[in-house]
């Protein structure tokens, strides 16, 4: 009941957040310099031509009027039409979302695996050179931004040892007709492992570039939590019972130490999705982030709005899910 009440409250807050984001984005992108009409003016355009284009894209009206028209459309599921791509915004944005989600989830999986392994190893070898080496590696991973990791990976695994694809999401020559935009998932479900492997070969470098800094954060936090847990009584008891150190860490300490990390992973996942903007561009990965950059360059106002609203929705939903999961896993919160 408590969880349900919390969920309803959070959903209400989510709705308010989205409306706030919509208003702010709508106003801001219209007052910042850069007019989409000015960008498409032909050389000999007259004032009448400019007026005609402004009317065509609804930019001749005041900002409040434009907002009301847009909001009215949104309530009916119509987010407008992209100026540069001349397609419905909702279609474009939802078409790209799966690519970004798959990339983000893959990055998260890599980050959790890498970070978790580093934390467990460092805990197992605490106080030794191994822990020191892991700490140094983690520091390096964290201090270099994801797009620079991307460039390093391109150089290493794209040029020097060309093991992975540098750009795109799938090989053009593959000739596989996808039924959905969840390429990775679909190829796996349809047991087309050649296609699946091709997609992984495209996603691996951008996902790893996104994952490396997050892995370092996970490693540091989890290691710290594990170290604190290792001093607790029940761990000492397990040790006196003769359990191996590995077993103590993974079976006794980890379940309790993981809760703070779980919260962090949830919060960081939203940042990770935000980080896809530059990484997707670098790897020419056809996700939301890559499209967002084009939209900003072209001052494609309806598309920018659509993308930002979707990002905001993802952020709030992920945070909601994290909160609920945390509450479900933590008995103190569940029974509060």
């Amino acid at each position, binding site marked *: 009941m408590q969880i349900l009440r919390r969920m309803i409250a959070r959903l209400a807050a989510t709705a308010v957040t989205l409306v706030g984001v919509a208003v702010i984005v709508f106003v801001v992108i219209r007052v910042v*310099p850069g*007019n989409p009409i000015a960008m498409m003016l*032909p050389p000999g*355009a007259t004032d009448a031509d400019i007026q005609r284009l402004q009317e065509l894209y609804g930019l001749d009206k005041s900002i409040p009027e434009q907002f009301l028209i847009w909001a009215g459309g949104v309530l009916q599921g119509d987010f407008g039409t992209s*100026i540069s791509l001349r397609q419905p915004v909702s279609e474009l944005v939802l078409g790209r979302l799966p690519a970004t989600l798959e990339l983000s989830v893959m990055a998260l999986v890599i980050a959790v695996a890498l970070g978790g392994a580093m934390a467990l190893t460092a805990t197992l070898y605490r106080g030794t050179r191994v822990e020191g080496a892991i700490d140094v590696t983690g520091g390096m991973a964290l201090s270099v931004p994801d797009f620079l990791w991307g460039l390093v990976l391109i150089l290493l695994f794209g*040029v020097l040892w060309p093991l992975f*694809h540098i750009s795109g999401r799938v090989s053009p020559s593959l000739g596989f007709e996808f039924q959905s935009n969840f390429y990775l998932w679909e190829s796996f479900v349809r047991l087309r492992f050649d296609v699946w492997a091709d997609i992984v070969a495209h996603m691996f470098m951008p996902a790893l570039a996104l994952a490396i800094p997050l892995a370092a954060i996970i490693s540091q936090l989890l290691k710290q939590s594990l170290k604190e847990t290792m001093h607790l009584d029940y761990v000492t008891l397990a040790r006196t019972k003769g359990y191996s150190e590995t077993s103590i860490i993974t079976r006794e300490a980890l379940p309790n130490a993981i809760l703070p990390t779980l919260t962090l992973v949830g919060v960081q996942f939203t940042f990770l999705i935000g980080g896809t903007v530059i990484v997707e561009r670098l790897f020419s990965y056809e996700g939301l982030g890559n499209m967002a950059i084009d939209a900003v360059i072209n001052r494609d106002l309806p598309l920018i709005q659509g993308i930002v609203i979707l990002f905001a929705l993802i952020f709030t939903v992920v945070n909601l899910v994290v909160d609920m999961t945390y509450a479900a896993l933590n008995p103190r919160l569940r029974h509060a």
Partner: protein
Amino acid sequence: MKLTRRTLLQSTAASVALAGASLPSFAAGIEELVIAYNVNLPSWDPTVGPSAVNPTIQGIYQSVFDLFIPQNPDLSFGSGILTGYGWNEDKTKIWMDVREGVTWHNGDPLTPEDVAWSLERAGNPETGNPIQFIWGKIGNYAIEGNRVTADVLAYEPTIFKWMSFLTGYILPKTYYESVGADGFESAPVGTGPYIVEKFERNAFVRLKANENYWGGAPEFKSVTIKFVTDAASRVAEVESGNAHVTLEMPYEEFDRLKEKSGIMGTAAPVSDIGMIFINDVDVMKDANVRMAMAHAIDKQLIIDRLLSGYGVAIDTLQTPDYSAYDASIKVAYDPEKAKELLAASGYGPDNPVKFTIQTTRGFKPKDYEIIQAIVGLWRRVGIEAEIEVYEIAKHYELRAADTLAPAAFYNWGNSIGDPTTSTGFAMFGPSPHSVWDGEDLMQKILPLWGEADEAKRIDGWKEVDRFIAANALVIPLLQYVQPILHSDQIKVVPHASGALLPHLMTRA
């Protein structure tokens, strides 16, 4: 098939090996040409929307669609879908002869109706063609045999040149009307050398050769154009062998990679220039200041030092391959003269004239660095310019509103090489792209728009350019050189318009 853990692992291992093996290689004979392109293709209709006036993607459009009149790599005009064209004697009508035996990619025959419909559609303000102001100057089309005629509603001396330029593409009337704009967007049909096989927005377009192309089937039967917008990634694509051709990378990278085994470099001037707009506000109303600015810039030094020599210094808005280019118009690098001019207006190194210069950063090769260098050269003679960096979108907005800073760096493309589309639109006050509003210049340009005598028209524009140079109403800097890196197994023919055209590529 029963899926077990073992079979899953085996399949995955085999798949990874397969995916690795699918990477293209320079060593193998090139069957499928892969091009790493520098921009995305937003839309397949080359006649409407912002992408229609984006010069960078015209190469892709020209692979699929035919221009009314094709342009040769040296910018001269060829014979294409229109095999002949011209005016009647009093220039009240135009005529166009349509090539026979041409088929659309869907097998339909191209007809004169397609040509008339394409022109009529382009001239209709409701279709959103950004060049409607040109196409609307002809109308009342009539067809007789394979000849299309039209009335001249307003005389436009460059109408046929525009048929080789932005939005000058022929689209299929019957097909377009049957599938509509959305249907055309998802399955475009042209008469060009390549047929669209598969298109993934922001990712790639896969083209197959049009074996029935009227100009002869292209050599590469399959072409994949990958959209790789990041220059570092594009370079890596070619360096790793993932792509066979790419363009637009830093000149230092170009010089480094063209020396590598298996990679060649082609660099040729294109119809794109760098210039400094001068807005007639504040100190820019002082001719001495403007002329001092122009004389204080050592363009060749900038090209050599910042662009590794890749550029052609220019003194008018015409490049050597434009029809109104006049080699006799020169603005010499003369810092002493610049000092004298400034002194005449009471300025000097101890009392510098001050203004703001705007520039993009990273939009064109070394744009910011070029302006930094110019500001340094200016400082020596008594000009103190403050650099303001802006996005290209802001430049367009400010320029359209005539509120650019006193000086602003920009680039200008003009692949048809006509003076109206360079000096004309950049310097004619009422144009939304001009920020110089001087009445005297406007009066010089005004009669040239409708001048029917071609020789007189071109001479007139040369005179305008001479006047502009003498008064430093704009500061032309350089003609850009386009760097192209490609496999040594491919011969690339650069096109002076800057369009990278796969049908001009052959096996070396």
